[in-house]
């Protein structure tokens, strides 16, 4: 088993819990009817995002999806900007114009959040191509789902990335479902990572609920990319413990699958690892308490913030002032 130093473990734990507490908060606000927006829950996938982002610097690029809260939070978008965006406020990262499916925050490398399945992969290649052209040493990580691995964009991007040896990491969060369709009903191969060899690419399969698998795999892929050794496809197996989006039908989930995901929940597992590494329960709880306080502040600010004015419709369509 790999060793992750304690500082890094705490870092990953903190990021993981930020993602989780943000998710819990969002669901509670939605449940109470305090907000009414599209939100794609990340319960069950927190660790994958957190450990992956922990392997990056602030300058590295990330492309994610509608289910990108994990990457966005773990990469460090300030909570108040993130919440304001999700609530459609002018103080949000995108002035309320992007919303939950289109969070962007270049200051922390969150370059694109796309709502179109698979479309992030070719764009990630482009970010990586710019880094290769520039020699700026950045690595690009693109996160996507198992369902996305069946769309053409995935294929084209994999081939091109390997051909040019781009500094990019393809992070497939295989939560075993694409919307309502189970993995075996949408994918003809046994795994997504098995496809890597068809591109001459390195493919790695990890248990996304095990920090000792996700983080080292990610770190190695990032190191290789940065060293000019080309792309890696990482498939992190995980579970989507909620419906496709908040409020969506979940009735199609087989009971065995539900039981399985409860057993494999990454959060108790991570807590166990932390305790094994001599973090005390009090320490860990304090981390969470701090996060909760931060989130509460951010939500309070976001709720109180101004809405964008109608003039925003004409701004940012093309450069320059509207006619």
């Amino acid at each position, binding site marked *: 088993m790999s060793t992750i130093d304690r500082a890094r473990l705490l870092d990953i734990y903190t990021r993981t819990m930020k993602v989780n507490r943000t998710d819990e908060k969002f669901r509670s606000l939605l449940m109470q009817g305090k907000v009414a927006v599209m939100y794609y829950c990340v319960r069950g996938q927190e660790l994958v995002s957190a450990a992956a982002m922990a392997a990056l610097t602030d300058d590295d690029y990330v492309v994610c999806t509608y289910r990108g809260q994990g990457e966005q939070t773990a990469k460090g978008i300030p909570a108040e900007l993130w919440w304001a965006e999700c609530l459609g406020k002018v103080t949000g990262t995108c002035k309320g114009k992007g919303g939950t*499916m289109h969070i962007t925050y270049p200051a922390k490398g969150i370059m694109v959040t796309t709502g179109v399945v698979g479309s992030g992969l070719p764009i990630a290649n482009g970010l990586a191509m710019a880094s290769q052209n520039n020699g700026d040493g950045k690595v690009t990580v693109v996160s996507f789902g198992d369902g996305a691995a069946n769309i053409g964009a995935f294929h084209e991007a994999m081939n091109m990335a390997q051909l040019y040896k781009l500094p990019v990491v393809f992070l497939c969060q295989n939560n075993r479902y694409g919307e309502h369709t189970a993995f075996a009903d949408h994918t003809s191969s046994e795994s997504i990572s098995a496809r890597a060899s068809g591109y001459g690419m390195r493919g790695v399969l990890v248990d996304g609920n095990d920090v000792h698998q996700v983080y080292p795999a990610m770190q190695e892929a990032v190191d290789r990319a940065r060293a000019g050794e080309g792309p890696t496809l990482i498939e992190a197996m995980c579970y989507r413990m909620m419906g496709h989006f908040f409020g969506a039908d979940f009735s199609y989930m087989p009971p065995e699958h539900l039981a399985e995901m409860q057993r494999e929940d990454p959060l108790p597992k991570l807590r166990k690892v932390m305790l094994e590494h001599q973090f005390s329960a009090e320490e860990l709880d304090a981390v969470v308490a701090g996060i909760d306080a931060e989130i509460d502040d951010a939500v309070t600010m976001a709720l109180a913030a101004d809405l964008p004015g109608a003039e925003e419709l004409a701004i940012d369509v093309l450069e320059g002032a509207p006619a």
Partner: protein
Amino acid sequence: MGEITLAQALNRAIDEAMADDPGVFCLGEDVAAKQGGGVFKITSGLSEKYGEHRVRATPISETAIVGAAVGAALAGQRPIAEIMLMNFVGVCMDQIVNHAAKLRFMSGGQTNVPLVIRTTTGVGVGFGGQHSDMLEAWFAHVAGLHVVTPSNAADARGLMRSAIECNDPVIFIENILCYGLKSEDPGPGYRVPMGKAAVAREGSDISLITYGRTVLDALAVAGELASEGISVEVIDLRTIAPYDEAAVLASVRKTGLALTLHEAVRPFGTGAELAATIQEKCWDYLKGPVRRVGGTFSPVPFATVLEQAWIPTKAQIIEQIKAALGRS
């Protein structure tokens, strides 16, 4: 028969067509029973009844979905392919435009593509920039396609049957916000012919030409203005392309004024074609220019307040009508 929603109307029309013709089958993401019968439940109950071969849940592969539908149609079947949301046609326009639309012509009539592509969209749901576009103008600009959209449940039922029976590809556009609209059920076997507009409300002062969800706005506005003594004729195109030019021209020749209305962005939208044709063919009847109302020329914004500002409003429609009538 009682009332049905537009969603139920679509479901029943597909159900009947599948019962009548073993060549009709559905394919698309999440459409079968195992997936809960589709994200918007339009195909709910059908795989149970007709089997998984006739209601195929697919991978997220729109090019493969439409391509498979094209191939099956070439072989004489009548596939109904679902593209979950209209913006995703961006990944499969090639199959629709370069293939489905052209194979009859390019084969010199040896083959044809009796295919329905169902898709939905809508502004006002809070889906943001990549899930709300109305792209009917793209399809209308392509020879070899029919483009239809219902504004009520009865038409949905009748148009869907006609679309499935059409021997050429039909882009069938649904609006998420309309799924719950109710009509008296026109019953099994009901058909609304392709290419025929409906006079949704008769009037004499101005022709308001629209389709889909904005028919509701048009009717509401016509009702409001009636009390001010303004008589608005509302034309529901139902088929956007090739559209019922005769019905449009007849209405405008009667009223002498026209306003086009759609949710899609105004520039280079379908309203432009209508306006251009009307002014050309009704020149001597027109009392003033054809006016157009459409969505704001920007991506659809996320924040509700902006999204609502983006959508063509009743106030805008009224303003244009009054301006046309010199009553502003």
